[in-house]
Every structure is written in structure tokens, then in C-alpha cells.
């Protein structure tokens, strides 16, 4: 009887000890005690973002010397279908924003304050122009860097690129042109400019 009592007592102590160990060390303790291990390796693979942007290559403007507020220009809609913010810029140095070689009218590029435009005669009117890029609506941009007009002549003197701003993912924004010119033209003029836009993932 005493042997049975002792065995019961020993088993009770053993189970009690196991219960206490289980409470203290938890399940791993039991697993470890069972002698099995398991490990899972997680390989994270992230694809690079795809830049997906569209923009017009040709932008036109008309000059109306009879109406100083009547000049009109295309509105270029820059569309980003990228699932990440995109930075939009134009490179400096005169190669990214310049007169097209096929342009039938090739005026000399000026800054708006270089000439007294209202007083220009026929000869100077027909050979001078100040053309600049302008953001239409600041609210369309995630970050707007170009808060003033970016003039062609100004861009020619720059070495780096001029950042227009950052677009939100899957969004669009409009840009247009501003011109300064004389008012004496004996015939209609057609002028075309090429812009090489540059896109990158925004910081």
C-alpha cells in the first residue's frame, strides 16, 4: 500500500512539475522536450516599378497681335499611369526645349524683360519671341517645383535639369505656354518647339 502511495505521490509530483514547466516555458518547452524543430525561410521578392507616362510631343500656340490677351496655346496633359509618384523634369542646356528644325518661323529666343515688346516694329516683331512653360493648376501636383514660368532662354543657360514637380500615382496634370512678342506682323507665323520631358520615380 505504501508502495502504491509512493508511486501515486511520485506521479503526482511529476505531473505537477510538468504542468509548472509548461506554464513557465509554454508550448515550445514541450516541443523542445519532444525533440522536433521547424524553421520557415521567407524570401521577399519585390519587382521594380514600371514607369508609365504619356505626354503630347507637339504643342502649338497662336499669337494674336491685335489682342494682347488673346494669345492661345495647347494645354498639354501629362498622364501618369504609374502606381508610384513620378517626378517630371526638363533637361537644361538648350537641347531639351528648343525650336524645331522644321519650324517655318525661327525667331530669336529672348527673356520677357529683354525687350520692350509693345514698341517693337515689324522687323523686330517678326524676329523675336519669348516662350515659356507654365503649370496650369498647382492643385494637380503632389509636389510643385515650378511656381513661375520656365522660359526657353532661361533653360538654355542651365546645366542641370529643371524639375516641374511630382505627380501622384495614376494622376494627370496640365501645362501650357506663355508668350511675349511684338505686335507688328505683316503675315501669319507658325512656330513649333520640341520638348524632351524626363521622368523618374519621385523621392
Amino acid at each position: 500500500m505504501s508502495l502504491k502511495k509512493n508511486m501515486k505521490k511520485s506521479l503526482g509530483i511529476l505531473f505537477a512539475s510538468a504542468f509548472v514547466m509548461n506554464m513557465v516555458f509554454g508550448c515550445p518547452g514541450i516541443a523542445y522536450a519532444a525533440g522536433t524543430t521547424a524553421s520557415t525561410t521567407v524570401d521577399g521578392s519585390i519587382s521594380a516599378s514600371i514607369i508609365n507616362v504619356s505626354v503630347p510631343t507637339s504643342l502649338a500656340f497662336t499669337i494674336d497681335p491685335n489682342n494682347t490677351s488673346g494669345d492661345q496655346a495647347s494645354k498639354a496633359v501629362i498622364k501618369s499611369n504609374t502606381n508610384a509618384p513620378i517626378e517630371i523634369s526638363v533637361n537644361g542646356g538648350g537641347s531639351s526645349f528648343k525650336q524645331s528644325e522644321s519650324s517655318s518661323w525661327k525667331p530669336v529666343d529672348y527673356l520677357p524683360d529683354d525687350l520692350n515688346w509693345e514698341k517693337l516694329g515689324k522687323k523686330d516683331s517678326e524676329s523675336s519671341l519669348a516662350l515659356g512653360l507654365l503649370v496650369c493648376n498647382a492643385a494637380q501636383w503632389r509636389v510643385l517645383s515650378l511656381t513661375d514660368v520656365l522660359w526657353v532662354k532661361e533653360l538654355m543657360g542651365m546645366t542641370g535639369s529643371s524639375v516641374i514637380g511630382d505627380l501622384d500615382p495614376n494622376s494627370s496634370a496640365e501645362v501650357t505656354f506663355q508668350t511675349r512678342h511684338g505686335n507688328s506682323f505683316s503675315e501669319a507665323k507658325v512656330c513649333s518647339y520640341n520638348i524632351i520631358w524626363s521622368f523618374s520615380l519621385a523621392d
Partner: protein
Amino acid sequence: MRMKEYQDDSSIHEIDGDSSDKEIRIATKKEERNLLEHKSRKPFLFILAGLCCLVVLIAVVIVGGNSKSDSGENTSGQDVTTNEENPEIRSFASSEAIQEGDLITTDNEEQERLNALAEESRVYCIISSAPYFQSIDGKGSLFISNPKESNYYTQVVIKTDDNKEMYVSPLLAPTEKIEYDYLTSKNFKQGSYHCFAYFNYYASEESSSYLGSMSAEINVEID
């Protein structure tokens, strides 16, 4: 009896002798006179007739001109622009072009035309921001696309920021894409290269149809 008829005539008094002879001679004289008178009047008649014709011709021209002007025809002719001292208000064919108000040389139609011109020239720039190549000889993930919405051909040239050419794509028509391709230059070692992918756009498969370019800043990785 005939003698009496010609008594007032001076030529009859000069004639003596037989009356029948006289009659014959008188008759002959008269015919001669008539003939002479007729001959002297002939040029005058011709001149008179000519003058009449001229007058009629002038009248026809004047009447014809007035009738054309009244009916509104030939209003832009040279005669119309002749400045008269007190010019009459001329009749006009139509008053449809007349509008009220100040001259307005800008309009929404012109703005729409300019915007449409820009929209027609829309081009697409689609490429992986970080093409990855397992080796210089292996294919890399470029993910270049010229989508179906595009109207133009495009060719992509990837250059490092120090202007070394790394990749030149074939000319892609709309709906064509390149997901994986080999670098066209093998003169690069393992590493990461800051590059520009230049998208050149053409209206046709001819170089002369070049429209413009765009660029995307990318990072090319070579293992």
C-alpha cells in the same frame, strides 16, 4: 408743160432751140445734178450712221452696267471700288455675316483645335524603372511597351549618364512590347548603372518621320 415745171431753174434759161431737145437736155442735167448731190451726201450719211451706232452702243453699256450693279452682282469689281465724291450705299447680297459687339479674335473653338493637335501627338513612355540582368550575357527584364493607344512607332535607346550606349531596342509598332531582352552592348561589368532610357518617336518606319523624344531615368543592374 414740162418747161413750166423747170422755169425757176437757171440752167433752163440758157437753153434755146427745139423744145423736145431742150426737154431731153434739161432731164440730163437734172440727173447729173442729182448724181452729184447724191455723191456729196454719201460720206455724210456714213458718218451719221456710225455716230448713231456709237450712241446706241454706249447706251447699251451704261444700261447693262447699271442693271448688274442693281442686282448685287459684281460688287467686288474694280468699278465698285472707284472712290466717288458722294458714293451711294450699294445693295448687298446677304446680311448673315453681320454680328453685334466688339471684335473678339479668341474663341473656344481655337482652344479646342490647339488642344486636339496636342492630343493627337500623344506618345507613351513605359519601361521598368530598374531593369535587372543576371549576367552581361543574360536576358534582362526591360518591360518596354508601345501600347495600343499609341499612334506612333518608338525605339528605345538606353544610355548611361556618361552617355555610353547600353541597349537599343527594335522599332516597336503600336501594341508591341519587349519584356525581356539582351543588352546590345557587352562592354559593361557587374554593377549598378544610373541610366536614361530615351524613347524616340516616329510617324512611320522612316527616320525622316521623327516626331520627338522623351526620357525615363532608370537604374540598370547587372549581376
